[in-house]
């Protein structure tokens, strides 16, 4: 398998010259195979082979007990016509909208504030990132406690400031449940976006701001005409990961509501889990898995295609 190639151009333009004087002796070949084997075996067996099997299963009707029956694309036909899937997908779209507006919106405001911050910028960044390192389960449960109708942080705060009439059982009211259930995952990753955006902002050359300063441009204009356009490439990363993350959303909602009340907070990921492991619809569940993967891919490809501008040169 491994053959001698001599001094090659492997690994992209910024890799240093590899061990140029070495040749691929049989001994080295053996070492190479031996060193690569564990990673290759694990990766192929548990990741690649698994994803291939999900795709394969999605063409069968199977409950784990009977003999799998090949049904062609009918699982996918059923998928796009299934009202529960569509309802769940609508909730995923709400998740995407919340992530784009609330998560990235707040992250942008914080990033721009941080770039103007006179002292303690690093401290603030550290604090904002705290929720992102905590497990989804713990964050969801914190919000579950905070949204408790009786003693929860939110309702008691509302009562304290005299807005007690607004207090309600956020998670068990089917009108508010979906927003309440999606809030934790939306808020948890604000700090993560802030870090990425701050990295982008530090790359904008000072000279631009100095020029703007000399021209007497206001702060708002600087933000609008310099920072945001030059940050666009980084904002795109945030948008794409917000979209794929929201499509795969599972943990928070599973812990908070499990899809209830009355399927009001069902997400596609939850549906996949329920169909596969509770209803034992292995084939159909697999087709939902593949669907989630494909829709995520489609979103990011379309987004890159239509919104990415040329690379910015400073």
């Amino acid at each position: 398998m491994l053959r001698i190639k001599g001094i090659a151009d492997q690994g992209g333009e910024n890799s240093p010259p590899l061990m140029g004087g070495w040749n691929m002796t049989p001994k080295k070949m053996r070492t190479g195979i031996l060193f690569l084997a564990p990673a290759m075996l694990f990766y192929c067996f548990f990741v690649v082979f698994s994803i291939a099997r999900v795709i394969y299963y999605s063409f069968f009707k199977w409950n784990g007990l009977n003999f799998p029956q090949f049904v062609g694309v009918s699982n996918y036909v059923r998928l796009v016509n299934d009202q529960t899937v569509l309802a769940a997908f609508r909730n995923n779209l709400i998740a995407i909208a919340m992530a784009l507006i609330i998560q990235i919106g707040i992250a942008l405001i914080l990033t721009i504030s941080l770039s103007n911050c006179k002292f303690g910028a690093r401290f603030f960044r550290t604090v904002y990132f705290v929720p992102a390192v905590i497990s989804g389960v713990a964050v969801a449960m914190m919000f579950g406690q905070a949204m408790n109708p009786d003693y929860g942080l939110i309702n008691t705060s509302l009562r304290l400031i005299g807005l007690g009439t607004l207090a309600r059982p956020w998670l068990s009211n089917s009108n508010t449940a979906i927003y309440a259930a999606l809030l934790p995952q939306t808020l948890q990753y604000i700090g993560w976006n802030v870090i990425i955006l701050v990295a982008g902002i530090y790359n904008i050359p000072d000279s631009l701001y100095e020029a703007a300063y000399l021209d007497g441009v206001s702060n708002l204009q600087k933000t609008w005409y310099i920072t945001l356009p030059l940050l666009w490439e980084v904002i795109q990363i945030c948008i794409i990961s917000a979209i794929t993350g929201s499509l795969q959303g599972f943990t928070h909602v599973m812990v908070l509501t499990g899809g209830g009340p009355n399927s009001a907070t069902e997400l596609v990921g939850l549906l996949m889990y329920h169909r596969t492991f509770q209803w034992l619809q292995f084939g159909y569940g697999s087709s939902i898995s593949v669907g989630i993967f494909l829709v995520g891919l489609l979103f990011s490809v379309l987004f890159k295609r239509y919104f990415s501008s040329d690379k910015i040169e400073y």
Partner: protein
Amino acid sequence: MENLQILESSLFPERQKPKHRKGISTQIILIATALITMMPLLWILMGSFKNNNELFLNSFGIPHIWRFENYYQAWKNGNIGADFFNSTFICCVSIICILLITSMAAYILSRFQFRLNFMIYSFFLMGLMIPWASNLLPLFLTLKKIGVYDTYWALILPYISFEIPFGVFILTGFMKSIPTELEEAAVIDGCSNWAIFMHVIIPLSKPVLSTVAILTFLDVWNEYLFALVFLSNPAHFTLSLGLAAFQTGRVQYYGIIMAGIIISIIPVLFVYILLQKQVIKGMTTGAVKG
């Protein structure tokens, strides 16, 4: 790739760049957000010392009596103690295996030249796109078949496998930047490949190895979905799973649930406070793989 370099070069600048702006309003926004971020955490921390009565009457304030027994209850009766050890064991084994396996692969991919090198590297990187959740069913069936379902290995094996793409990606990138002179010297001294790997490459790669270790720790410690599907015996539950089980009636006092939440996040916060830079770097590079 260029995004990665942007991140690398600018994530931790030595000094703040002056942007010629002043303003008290930005400072207020920042402080207010920081307070709001920490508020739920503080509220949970305070609540974890209260009993139900006090929680209803005095939801906000500092507890009148500090009920440390809530923690004891969560640890013992809530089974959080056992879950804690399960999570720790699974984490440790996963981290050791992932470091060994990926650094070996990265050593070959960054140092050896052969025709398939770049193809194998890209093949590993492909895995970064695959969502963990989509492999749930085949993994479940495989684990049942090889007889490890509902054991620690039912989690360790998938965790190792799914961390491989990230590990290979970040380690190969770093090892390519290690100058070759040291190895050449070692070759002249007659070292074997294994000796070079263990005594030259590994010590030099420590900073990146720690990034991979930390990210693996966070991923594994916080993981929920695999644990939910691949475990059924409560004695094997991980912390995430045990915590979530709290809600469905393992305990009847809310303060104990809150104590459980606090226990589960202490190790993570500890690691974050100690190794902030590495944590942030590990969690953000994965996304900027571009």
